[in-house]
């Protein structure tokens, strides 16, 4: 009984949103009275016509339309960096944004698909980034391991693995870490899951900062703390050469390739048996378990897969930033990625992609590169970087109040939220794309 109430009983909507709301309503009423009587009918006619056109357009489109669109988007994505210089700020912001898209897709598996609120996602970013530091630099100076690395790196001390191998290692480590983090949360409810994951994320962050006092023998430590681990091997591909931090196009193509892989896996997962099991568990755990869904395995797989994607993105970001500093791995990072998928629309793959692009462009391009010059152009002596926190927070509040379901909500969730819906629109039986 209490379970049923929990999911549906909410504090009832407010009666009146106070003075301001009353004033606004009064104004809108006055406006409506002033408008001619045929106004609403005209509006309805226009809306119906628009809907008819868009439906007709959708019917006219050939069945291969969505695939063609995907190909066009991918080709544009591949060609995009050619329009920008190798060192442009926009390209820098774009490839960071793509890395965040990978993060958001990973977190979307855990939070969006499986409904397990994870506030410690930064842990997997940390694991991924430290994999680059551990397996691709001279940090473990007592070891001498070289696998498929460039000529320069193959003569250095330390562990040097090929970038792809580091990606695989990070994916494996993160999957195990994800399962370990998931294990104690299996019996808990959503808010408590959030708390346990938050605590894990914080512990990993503290470990990263204090790793200098965790000795591994031979004078080697776990991390370099706030000093940062630098001199990382740039990603090297046999036959293609190493990436150069001053040539951003190659970095862009690398993260685009990772993104396309992750996106493909995500799209296939959503419609798969596993993806449907996640959604079933999210919607009603008792019903899902009684239908024979193995709750433990399904949940742990969600954690593992989400963590894997986070780790892969962490490997890329670590290699791209060229320094692994423990200060990166703060709680605010988890919140940043979570904001992306909620702003985009929880559980929706395209929502996660667009939410991540939107928020990272705001954070890494709009605020530092575009908005910052406005006060100077207006002749004001005022530094906008000091306000970047506040602007970001304000935008979060604004988006949520205007569109609480997110910008591009998952269709299933959209249906839940708008109960009164025309039958022809209720395409719950539509096979997943």
């Amino acid at each position, binding site marked *: 009984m209490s379970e049923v109430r929990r999911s549906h009983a909410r*504090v009832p909507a407010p009666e009146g949103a106070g003075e301001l709301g009353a004033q606004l309503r009064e104004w809108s009423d006055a406006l409506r009275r002033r408008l001619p009587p045929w106004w609403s009918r005209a509006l309805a006619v226009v809306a119906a016509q628009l809907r008819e056109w868009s439906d007709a357009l959708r019917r006219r489109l050939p069945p291969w339309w969505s695939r063609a669109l995907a190909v066009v988007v991918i080709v544009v994505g591949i060609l995009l960096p050619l329009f920008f210089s190798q060192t442009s700020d926009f390209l820098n912001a774009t490839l960071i944004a793509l890395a965040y898209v990978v993060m958001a897709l990973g977190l979307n598996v855990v939070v969006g698909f499986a409904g397990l609120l994870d506030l410690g996602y930064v842990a997997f970013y940390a694991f991924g980034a430290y994999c680059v530091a551990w397996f691709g630099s001279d940090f473990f100076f007592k070891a001498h391991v070289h696998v498929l690395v460039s000529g320069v790196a193959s003569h250095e001390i330390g562990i040097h693995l090929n970038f792809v191998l580091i990606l695989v290692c990070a994916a494996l480590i993160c999957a195990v870490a994800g399962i370990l983090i998931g294990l104690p949360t299996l019996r808990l409810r959503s808010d*408590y899951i959030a708390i346990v994951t938050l605590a894990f994320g914080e*512990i990993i962050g503290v470990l990263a900062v204090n790793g200098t006092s965790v000795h591994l023998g031979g004078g080697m430590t776990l991390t370099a703390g706030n000093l940062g681990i630098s001199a990382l091997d740039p990603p090297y591909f046999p036959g293609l050469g190493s990436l150069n931090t001053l040539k951003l196009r190659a970095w862009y193509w690398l993260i685009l390739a990772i993104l396309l892989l992750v996106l493909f896996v995500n799209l296939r997962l959503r419609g798969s048996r596993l993806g449907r099991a996640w959604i079933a568990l999210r919607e009603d*755990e008792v019903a899902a378990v009684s239908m024979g869904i193995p709750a433990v395995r399904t949940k742990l797989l969600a954690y593992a897969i989400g963590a894997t994607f986070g780790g892969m993105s962490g490997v890329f970001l670590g290699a791209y930033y060229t320094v692994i500093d423990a200060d990166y791995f703060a709680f605010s990072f988890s919140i940043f990625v979570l904001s992306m998928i909620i702003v985009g629309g929880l559980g929706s793959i395209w929502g996660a992609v667009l939410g991540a692009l939107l928020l990272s462009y705001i954070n890494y391009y709009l605020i530092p590169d575009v908005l910052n010059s406005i006060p100077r152009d207006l002749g004001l002596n005022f530094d906008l970087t000091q306000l970047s*926190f506040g602007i970001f927070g304000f935008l979060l509040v604004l988006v949520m109040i205007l569109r609480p379901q997110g910008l591009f909500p998952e269709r299933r969730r959209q249906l839940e939220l708008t109960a009164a819906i025309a039958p022809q629109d209720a395409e719950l039986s539509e096979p997943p794309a």
Partner: protein
Amino acid sequence: MEAQSISRIPLTSTTPVQALRRYIGRWGLIVALLALPAYYGVRDLTHGYQVGYNAAGHAVVRHDLSQLGFNFVSGLSNGSIWALVAMGYTLVYGIIELINFAHGDVFMIGSFTSVSLWATLGLGLATGPLGLVFGLLATLLIAMFVCGSLNVLIERVGYRPLRAAPKLAPLITAVGFSFILQNVGLLWRGGSPVGVSDLIHENDTMFRISGVIFHRADVLAFAVTIPLVFALTWFIAHTRPGRAMRATAQDPEAARLMGINVDTTISLTFLIGGMLAGAAGLVYAMYETTIWYFQGFDAGLIAFTAAVMGGIGNVRGAVLGGLIIGCIQQLSDARLGPQWTPAVVFGYLILVMILRPRGLLGEETREAG
């Protein structure tokens, strides 16, 4: 959890594993909490601890429990600040099931308001005791008023329009407000910790009880916290608005049907939470004598941990959790080193979640069921 509630159906026979599990569920957390002080207490008695050097230059080692007692006194006074913040978390969570991420930053604004008010009122190191008492009382009232109103405003703008929205939407507006408030703090006092004048000479010894030193700051923290906790518990238990708060926390719809104005009750909850955070902000500024815009973030996480440890939604639990977290923090600061303290605190949080998810004093309420 559904699966768990199924397993709770009493079976006809109890296997040893089930008995063990129940035993761990009942006592495991208490044992885990006592392990840390017990270990260091035994260590102090057997190995002793160094208190300084004598005239001959030899280390003076003592074998008693007064160092542990001192850790506990500072832990309890530090924890009473967390208790004040944690009560705000637990009240809000109990009534609308929202982790109010902006709460820690309201606490920070409380500190900043208090420190600015001292300057306005002319409180300084030279102020006499009478002026200090009145000045601090005035500051306390104003800081509580400012933070309470701020919290109500945040609820009005950020959370109320989202009551019917998906559950995670208000969480994100809370994060947004947290960022906005941090930015306000950043613009107000700059990006690095600011020292504030040590009005009460917080490290002067007030008195000793069998070798355990009580600093002025400790006494101040207790003097502010204890009356507020009693006032709040009395308010919730015995007044009409308090009953309305409890009813709304149990079942908002039924409360509305019984004629309770749910919106006003929720606003009141935020007002009280904000006022407690304001009081905590003042005490924190005097206790730590440094403030900075990011203090609210850490304090928020710690206080939230405290609220969860005590049993979220339970006011007495929040106080107990705050005090326990304060003691864990002090023990860890003094023995392991402050850099490990967050890891220790969060490690305990995970232990709580594994051993006793409903918290120490948590009951089977709407959210813990």
